[in-house]
């Protein structure tokens, strides 16, 4: 019976995870390493990689700061509307990414709330880099905050109180006590946030406008190339995203151990 269950799980995993992963890499390398590398060195591919890095970099940076502040406020203070704020943080998780994208179209589109004003002042948000960054930031907002809130709640605020009673300022307390205590959890949140930011398709697809070499991120370019039957090129870009996923998984496993250690140091 035990063998049967394990066998079933392994078969399932092989068919749905391992095989597709192998397929991505074998397809990408189908015409040899040289072709693979040239597909990645293509101007459009380079532009997409660059845009993805920019969008992920900015949105991860923003969510790092907002996430820490939001988690700090929620975990260490009591205020009216706290439950509402927690629900709000989860919103991007519960809403379809396509709808998240549409929200920005409604806000900044030609017929949107701010559209006419923005157009009058010559500011381009939709179908340009700003919209891609905004959509990515919105979709990935929960990762850092969600990771930190339970961690900070469990750690309590006694160490902070101790630091302050020893004469430390709020700023010093944050840098020397709070941050070292949450650093692994923070890194974990950033990692997941980054993986999602680089892989985001739905929301970005709605706001990007698919301008080749300008507003295509890596996932968008994969789709375009695939639709044009450029299989090898599509899978070459996809292999980069798959590689990112693998690295993320490995680092994530390492971090999980560290977080566990930080929470229950008595066990070691």
């Amino acid at each position, binding site marked *: 019976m035990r063998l049967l269950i394990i066998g079933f799980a392994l078969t399932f995993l092989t068919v749905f995870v391992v095989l597709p992963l192998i397929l991505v890499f074998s397809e990408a390398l189908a015409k040899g390493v040289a072709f693979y590398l040239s597909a990645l060195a293509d101007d459009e591919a380079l532009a997409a990689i660059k845009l993805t890095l920019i969008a992920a970099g900015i949105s991860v940076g923003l969510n790092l700061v907002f996430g820490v502040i939001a988690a700090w406020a929620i975990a260490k203070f009591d205020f009216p509307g706290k439950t509402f704020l927690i629900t709000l943080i989860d919103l991007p998780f519960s809403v379809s990414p396509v709808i998240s994208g549409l929200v920005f179209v409604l806000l900044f589109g030609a017929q949107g709330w701010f559209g006419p004003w923005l157009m009058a002042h010559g500011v381009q948000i939709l179908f340009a880099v700003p919209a891609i960054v905004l959509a990515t930031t919105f979709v990935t907002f929960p990762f850092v905050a969600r990771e930190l809130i339970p961690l900070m709640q469990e750690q309590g605020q*006694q*160490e902070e*109180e*101790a*630091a*302050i*009673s*020893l*004469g*430390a*300022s709020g700023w*010093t307390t944050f840098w*020397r*006590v709070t941050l*070292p*205590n949450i650093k692994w959890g923070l890194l974990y949140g950033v990692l997941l946030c980054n993986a999602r930011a680089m892989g985001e398709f739905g929301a970005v697809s709605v706001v990007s406008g698919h301008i080749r070499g300008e507003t295509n991120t890596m996932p968008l370019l994969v789709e375009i190339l695939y639709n044009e039957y450029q299989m090898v090129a599509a899978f070459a870009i996809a292999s980069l995203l798959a590689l990112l996923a693998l690295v993320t998984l490995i680092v994530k496993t390492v971090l999980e151990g560290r977080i566990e250690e*930080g929470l229950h*140091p*008595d066990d*070691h």
Partner: protein
Amino acid sequence: MTIEVRNIVKEFGSFRALDNVDLRVETGELMALLGPSGSGKTTLLRIIAGLEWPDSGVVTIDGEDALAHGAAERHVGFVFQHYALFRHMNVFENVAFGLRVQPRKIRKSEAEIKKRVGNLLDLVQLGWLADRYPSQLSGGQRQRIALARALAIEPRILLLDEPFGALDAKVRKELRAWLRNLHEEIHVTSIFVTHDQEEALEVANRVVVMDKGRIEQIGSPGDVYERPASAFVHGFIGESIVLPVEVRDGRVRLGDRDLDLIAQDAAAGPSKLFVRRHDVAVGPSGSGVFEGAVKAVRAFGPMQRADIVLGGLGGDILIEIDAPRDHSLKVGDHIGLQPQRYRIFADR
């Protein structure tokens, strides 16, 4: 350094944690705030430390308005029940923290910090643990490190919140004696919070008994034990026999019986008679105010503890008394009981 607290009121929502509290702590005192959980003792301590703010009232430390400053500027050493050591720093860095975060102008040199931390670790007798991390220490060691860390900033006063509450009984007893000795050595004005009466009576030179956000009594350990000021204090400190009685025309009545006891200054009406378990003289039947039958006897140490069923009071009342071992008590004996010292407090 004296501490003075006047008219402190603190509410959490509709719960009144502190209700007009006044307290004065003299220089060099080691004072205990004693009370059940929810009595407001920890809140009072945290207000003095600046970790909590009162709704109204005055707190002065050495004559200076403490409420004008936050916790960081008060120079108050605070020791937490669960130690609150910085988990990512070793013992040395924990103790050095207060010195390292001082403004650059007055910050000590690395050599001075090293020397001072070394002295403090010697003071708490844990110099050999300097490189360890908090997770590698026992509870008692952690609490001594927490104390050394609090003393590093040369605090004007030292506040300890249930310092031994998380430790097991044996370590707790050791640390009690140790804290007393340490206080005699460094003589910093100290207040500690506890719900353990034995701890308060044994360690402090003055005890403040609190209940429901009010101070019930302030006095020496002898005072609060021998001369409780209220029914609450009598019931909370030491073990007492409590009987519901009624005071009428200066007489004490239990049920329809007139007890041959003095009403003291209790007002007429329903009251409580308090007798310490060891303040009951046991004699032959007919020798005391109460008659009883021995139901069970447990002998240990110099005393024996007996369960006695009091009779003739309209329904049986079970009490526990402590009697010297030389007085033989056997199950089934009928005995007379005479309270030698007792207090009567009118019900509030």
